[in-house]
């Protein structure tokens, strides 16, 4: 099994540790992982701004970089969802279709493809899990509070394998943090208010760390935590799953 590691642009630039943890975790589990050096971005920032018609360059690059792998794995539910839903190439649609079908978010890849049942890690801290919407509602990584359906959570299933980790409850288990891509600057007031409320829920319940499947939500909440001089940290779920082993 050859896995192409897809590291979203902002993770590459600002949160390399999330990428490193994803790589190390997969390697530890015996997977052959390659990071194609010429990848950039999935094109979502433009597409969500209404400029999907300008993403052809990104799409072409993505198909060129990742077309040959058995699986494409990424530490971001949001970017994976974008690729799954919107990656098209008018002159190479068959290849694009294949790419769309083999891109995986890291936690789902661990639970559904690798079928991981135990992890060697240890993380003796109180952790709040933020359900990033695109992973949860888009990729269906976890059940959703709106639906009348059985409960499950792939990220939680993995966090439960980590020794010493104490998961804190939340008042609102799956409310959006307000990042929303360019929404975070075009709708600054509401975005920040949503972020403050989400952070408060974690703080009230005693979180030492806030984790999740998307660094973008965590970056937004980190900005709010640091502005209020909080000691609480954000950490990508791959970093926790990879910790202490």
């Amino acid at each position, binding site marked *: 099994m050859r896995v192409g590691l897809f*590291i979203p*642009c902002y993770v*590459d*630039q*600002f949160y*390399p540790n999330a*990428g490193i943890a994803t*790589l190390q975790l997969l390697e530890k589990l015996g997977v052959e992982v390659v*990071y194609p*050096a*010429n*990848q*950039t*971005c999935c*094109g979502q920032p*433009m*597409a*969500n*701004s*209404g*400029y*999907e*018609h*300008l*993403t052809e*360059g*990104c799409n*072409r*690059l993505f198909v060129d970089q990742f077309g040959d792998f058995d699986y494409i794995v990424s530490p971001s539910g949001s970017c994976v969802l974008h690729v799954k839903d919107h990656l098209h190439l008018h002159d190479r649609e068959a290849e694009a279709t294949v790419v769309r079908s083999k891109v995986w978010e890291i936690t789902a890849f661990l639970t559904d493809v690798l079928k991981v049942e135990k992890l060697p890690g240890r993380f003796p801290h109180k952790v709040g899990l933020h359900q990033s*919407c695109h992973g949860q*509602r888009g990729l269906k990584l976890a059940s*959703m509070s*709106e*639906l*009348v*359906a059985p409960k499950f959570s792939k990220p939680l299933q993995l966090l439960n394998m980590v020794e010493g980790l104490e998961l804190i409850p939340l008042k*609102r288990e*799956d*409310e959006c943090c*307000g*990042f*929303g*891509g360019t*929404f975070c600057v*075009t*709708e*600054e*007031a*509401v975005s*920040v*208010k*949503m*972020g403050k*409320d989400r952070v408060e829920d974690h703080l009230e319940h005693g979180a030492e760390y806030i984790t999740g499947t998307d660094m973008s939500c965590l970056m*937004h909440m*980190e*900005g*709010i935590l*640091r*502005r209020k001089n909080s000691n609480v940290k954000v950490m990508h779920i791959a970093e926790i799953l990879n910790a202490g082993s």
Partner: protein
Amino acid sequence: MKKDHAQLSADFNANEPRVNWHDETLWWIRQKRDKAANTLPEWEELREAASAVKYHTLSNLSEYLQQFEANAHRNGITVHWAADAAEHNHIVCTILKEQGIKRIVKSKSMLTEECHLNPYLAENGIEVIDTDLGERIVQLADEPPSHIVLPCIHKKKEEIGELFHEHLGTAKGEADPQVLTAAARLHLRETFLTRRGALTGVNFAIAETGEFVVCTNEGNADMGAHLADVHIACMGIEKLIPLRQHLGIYLRLLTRSATGQPQTTYSSHFRSPRPGQQMHIVLVDNGRSTQLGREEFRNSLKCIRCGACMNTCPVYRRSGGHSYHTAIAGPIGAILAPNLDMKQYADLPFASTLCGSCSNVCPVKIDIHDQLYKWRQVLMKDGQGGAMKTASMKVMNFTLSSPGVYRTAGKAGRWFLRNVPFVVNNPLNPWYKQRDMPEAPQQSFGEWYKQNRKQ
């Protein structure tokens, strides 16, 4: 220039305790909805059925409309067709004038809000008293409703007390909901008894029988219609369902989704006028045919106006209904409004994080958040983004399409953040206003990988 959603939301957020109160109030309703939904194990199948019946109806709308018209006519109802808001207003006004009616009661109808009927009738010398308590309150305050089911949800009871003191003569400082409701009831009762014309909305119209159903919690539609000589019911053409038996699906979903009640207190069937009474139905298009022709947005016409998408929307709860500057606020409003005017409502599909909660609560399974995304594409292609936004998107595309440019730009960006942080840490950067920037690491992941793994 008129303020857009972002500016109106910023105004709303100037008072944070009020935002908290608004958010908590609507979240409480969302939780009531969850509880009610979970009492029905077949909830998801009901949603599926509701969606399918509406899909079928919309696909055969012209036939069902004609069937409905014929049956309604047979029942003694006069049926009118209005292509747009102006024609709708003209029809209503003409019926009233012919009967010499100068004062009417109106139960809740979002369609008449959409058509701006009240100001039109006022200009024509006809006074409208809204009889839904929430609508009456916003009418006294001279404001539009901020929510389709809970029109005055943005008002605190103290503010309503103040309004009632001013208009209905309740004691100054009186804010007890029970006392205020009693005062409103007294005032409305007198109104009901003296009005000869009643206008109602329509929740469902049944093609098979030519009857229509109006759902209220206050019984105000019935009170108005039963006492008046002329009953006018205004409905959008999408309110149709084929058979009476389909009603069970929708009545079970509507109020559970809206407020968490199992049923509306009153679900009244109107089939034919009582002796001596006139009954009119105005079937209104006002852009609905256009929306029906937009394949990607057709599903929005399934909406049964429960308001669940508003209650669940984390943006709506923190921006208030008025920030959407249209009769129907929230996620559903944001996909309906651009159909009526792309320029005026170009901001609304962007008033969302695309979290998807709206689509999940929607009782007729409208893919609301996907349509928000699709509207963004349509609006930007139509040039509604402006030259600046388009130019910056082209720069972004250029940078991200070329790995070399991307790497150089990333490195430069991180260098600036580390060494001259004031370039971004200033009030001109909307991120920085209330959030710190992320720390810029020395190495990107790509650089680390190059150093640490064999290529």
